[in-house]
């Protein structure tokens, strides 16, 4: 009971901090998923192309990004990127670039799997009609792959909302960072964690429901 009152107290006093963190997390997730998707599509195009060397390179990169901890990748970009470029880079930029690259690896796999899940007979039929490659992809394969891809892409967005919390390690603005701000100001760790958990849950729960609705709409239309 005391904890509940104390939690409410923390919330009423510090809600603008949490709100700021929430907006930062939403913005970061959106930017990361948007650019991660664009880069991921590019990567999957290379991965599925006939240029075996580049396809192999992308495959290795993607396996590597999926096979190492995201936190490690964040540290790596945080320290390595300024060194490689040879000038100061705002840490926000390094962190967001690392998140985008990591996300693109997952999106690449989502697209590859979605495209390869389309019945090979569809490609054969289009080829036998004499359709050229660009039309086979744009008019036959991708429209059918979309319904495999979109739900998984929605889940990737939900995942990214949670993963951006790692950015707080570097004091980059996000929801998890607001915990550290409140905690340092009030010394009320448990209370702010409870608030954060509820906010994160509300966020991911609503997003997955939205993804679910979208999914059903799509399934109905195909």
């Amino acid at each position: 009971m005391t904890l509940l009152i104390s939690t409410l107290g923390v919330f009423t006093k510090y809600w603008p901090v949490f709100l700021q963190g929430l907006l930062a997390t939403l913005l970061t997730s959106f930017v990361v998923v948007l650019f991660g998707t664009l880069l991921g599509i590019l990567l999957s195009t290379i991965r599925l192309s006939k240029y075996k060397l580049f396809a192999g390179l992308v495959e290795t990169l993607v396996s590597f990004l999926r096979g190492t901890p995201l936190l490690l990748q964040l540290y790596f970009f945080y320290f390595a990127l300024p060194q490689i470029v040879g000038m100061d880079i705002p840490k926000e930029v390094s962190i967001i670039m690392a998140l985008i690259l990591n996300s693109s690896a997952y999106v690449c796999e989502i697209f590859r799997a979605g495209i390869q899940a389309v019945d090979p007979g569809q490609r054969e039929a289009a080829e036998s009609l004499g359709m050229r490659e660009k039309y086979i992809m744009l008019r036959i394969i991708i429209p059918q792959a979309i319904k495999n891809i979109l739900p998984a892409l929605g889940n990737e967005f939900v995942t990214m909302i949670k993963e951006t919390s790692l950015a707080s390690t570097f004091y980059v603005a996000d929801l998890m960072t607001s915990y550290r701000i409140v905690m340092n100001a009030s010394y009320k760790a448990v209370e702010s964690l409870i608030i954060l958990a509820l906010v994160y849950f509300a966020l991911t729960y609503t997003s997955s429901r939205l993804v679910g609705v979208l999914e059903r709409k799509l399934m109905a239309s195909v």
Partner: protein
Amino acid sequence: MSNIIEIKNLRKGFGDLKVLKGVSETIKEGEVVSIIGPSGSGKSTFLRCLNLLEKPDSGDIIFDGKSLIEDKVNLSLHRQKIGMVFQHFNVFPHLSVLDNIILTPMLEKKLSKEEAVNQAKELLEQVGLLDKIDVFPRKLSGGQKQRLAIVRALAMDPMVMLFDEPTSALDPEMVKEVLEVIVGLAKKGMTIVIVTHEMGFAKEISNRVLFMDDGQIVEQGSPQDIFDNPQNPRTKEFLEKVL
């Protein structure tokens, strides 16, 4: 009669398995050629090589005077003139019946929408599917899907039609409606190569029957030769089993 497809010493393997062991054949304009034989004999692979859905390891396919192997750049142009119908229909599930038919003529033959639609309606009328024009394929029966697949291929105005076991995936009561469409095509003089297990049908519509076994054409001749008076022991053995 001019030669439409000349097949020269075709060889194809999948790994260690040699599926085609040197097949040569000539398909002439207006011919209806049936390919029969036990499963695994290479019939479907042979047919799929004719429009390079399978790439032969060696040999050549001369279509309308040009080597498909050498003229890779124009492969899609050549394929437009070689219609193909598959065992599992492979209609496009995300497109309506009409769009299934008009998509490729509009994209690749630059037909206007009006021309393409008129042509599609005419063809659908012929196969009795005009009332399904706005329906999506998931609402069609197997027989209707296969008739749609035939119309889709015909809309490209092909010089030859390849059928790969077109009735094998159909419920028995739907076989006839599809075979009737193919008979109709044959009567109009379409050049047809068909892989089939329907022996009665092969006998009825073919000018020529090829019996394949173990990656080779073992025996060929008129339907009467093959069905009533087979010479090769393997042909005899196969026909005894299926007839």
